[in-house]
């Protein structure tokens, strides 16, 4: 499996989609801090926004940066779908499957390499959070203090998990559709619209009697987990429960991908 991971990291490193994905994630956090800083410098441009400067300081960078998880996970889903789907359209899956590793080893190696990429995205988000918060603190002449190491580690873990759920969903869809365009489309429609509508519908049935079902959706759990860093209300979903549900989603998407690659003909 190490050889498959090595091969995948080699090709990911040079792949434009992976580089653009990483750059967009960095840009998201930079824009977040940039807007906050602009509102501090020019309060008149958005007088109603009432920016909370405390959230922009280094002590709170984990809380602030995890707020980028939502859009970043969409990017992780798109890159995952592109990776898996284009393996079919370029015929590179056939090349991989006719080398030395078996099908399941190939799938495992590929997903492992992709999870390293989502770890890199999580690190980029936090690194941009550090950089942005230091700029704000320096501009405000505010003393720099950092969150506890355990909180930074938890923030990294939460971001990695949320991005990995979306990434493995993208890989599963790319494998299912055997081409990138349909996989990206289906993933975005599900993640950004369909899931929200379904959750809203289910949560409204019989005065919320089926809320427990709505709480099983990945979007609800991702939000609950990332919001927990800011101390915001997370409803019925505790961070611990969110982690378990999200891990289950990763396992389901990985198993679905492995089953598809194992059972279907590679054409």
């Amino acid at each position: 499996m190490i050889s498959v991971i090595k091969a995948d990291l080699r090709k990911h490193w040079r792949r434009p989609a992976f580089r653009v994905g990483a750059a967009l994630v960095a840009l998201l956090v930079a824009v977040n801090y940039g807007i906050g800083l602009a509102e501090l410098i020019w309060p008149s441009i958005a007088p109603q926004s009432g920016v909370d400067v405390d959230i922009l300081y280094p002590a709170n960078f984990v809380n602030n940066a995890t707020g980028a998880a939502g859009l970043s996970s969409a990017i992780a889903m798109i890159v995952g779908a592109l990776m898996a789907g284009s393996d079919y359209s370029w015929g590179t899956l056939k090349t991989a499957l006719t080398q030395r590793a078996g099908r399941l080893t190939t799938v495992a190696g590929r997903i492992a390499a992709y999870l390293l990429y989502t770890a890199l995205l999580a690190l980029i988000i936090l690194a941009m959070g550090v950089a942005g918060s230091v700029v704000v603190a320096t501009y405000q002449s505010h003393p720099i203090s950092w969150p506890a190491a355990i909180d930074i580690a938890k923030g990294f873990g939460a971001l990695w998990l949320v991005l990995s759920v979306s990434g493995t969903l993208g890989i599963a869809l790319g494998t299912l559709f055997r081409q990138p365009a349909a996989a990206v489309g289906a993933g975005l429609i599900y993640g950004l619209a369909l899931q929200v509508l379904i959750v809203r519908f289910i949560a409204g049935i019989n005065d919320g009697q089926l809320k427990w079902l709505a709480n099983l959706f990945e979007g609800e759990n991702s939000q609950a987990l990332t919001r927990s860093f800011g101390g915001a209300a997370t409803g019925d979903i505790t961070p611990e429960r969110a982690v378990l549900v999200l891990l289950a989603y990763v396992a389901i998407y990985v198993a679905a991908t492995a089953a598809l690659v194992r059972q279907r003909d590679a054409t």
Partner: protein
Amino acid sequence: MQNITVVETHGLTKRFGSRVLAVDSVAMSVRRGEVYGFLGPNGAGKTTTLRMLVGLIRPTAGTATVAGHAPGAPAGLARIGSLIEAPGFFPYLSGRENLRVVADLAEIDHKRVEQVLEIVELSSRAHRKFGTYSTGMKQRLGVAAALLKDPELLILDEPTNGLDPQGMAEMRRLIKEVGQGDRTVLLSSHLLGEVEQICDRVGVISNGRLVKQSSVQELLGEEGVLVRAQPIDQAEAVLTRMFGPQAVTRQDGALHLKTKPEHAVDINRELIVAGVTVSELRPFERSLEEVFFQLTGERQGS
């Protein structure tokens, strides 16, 4: 060439859905050290068979042993190099980087990448992105990837597809070179001249069935005599009387006889005695093309 079998199939069958029978009970054997041509018209089932041999698709029925293992088994794959259909590479990587990715997957030292680039004469253009390659360069890179493992069995699916005449000649030369020694080459093609030039043995597949498997010489070697004579009906009657109805066929205004050329004197004498005017009487050698059309029931130009 040795009599050790490198590829052996029994009743290999592939159905797509309930209606399409792509490969029907194919029993083929490829021996170590030979260049085996897998001949058939487009859609005959060549690529589907080769895909089954490398484990990309699973047979509906039947068995296959490839390099001593079941198709797709890692131990077998380690001894097989293949180029099935179009070469599958990443367009944003250079030719060299693509080979390095394949080398990583195959657990091969990167030094071998430079060696295979030399073999396929792509070293000077290996830095260019695969997406910018011509069809010929893509095919050669595909062969280079297939050679990375220095495989004992090389499976090439229509490697001259899309190449211009010069590219085809270069590819044939390359296949002849890599097919020397103990290495076995299984080559699919619908180009008969190519197979006749390169291969030791051939298997002819038509409508999913293997209709013939033999050496090229054996396939071409059925001796015969061609007779042009007038009136042709009378000539046919004389020859049928001499050799039996199975041995005489009428084709393009001539009579083809399945018999040894030494009988030409007897044939000439009998025809003259019967009052037939003989305008042409000669041994004929069938081309692979003729044999192919006869075996597959296909017509040239159809």
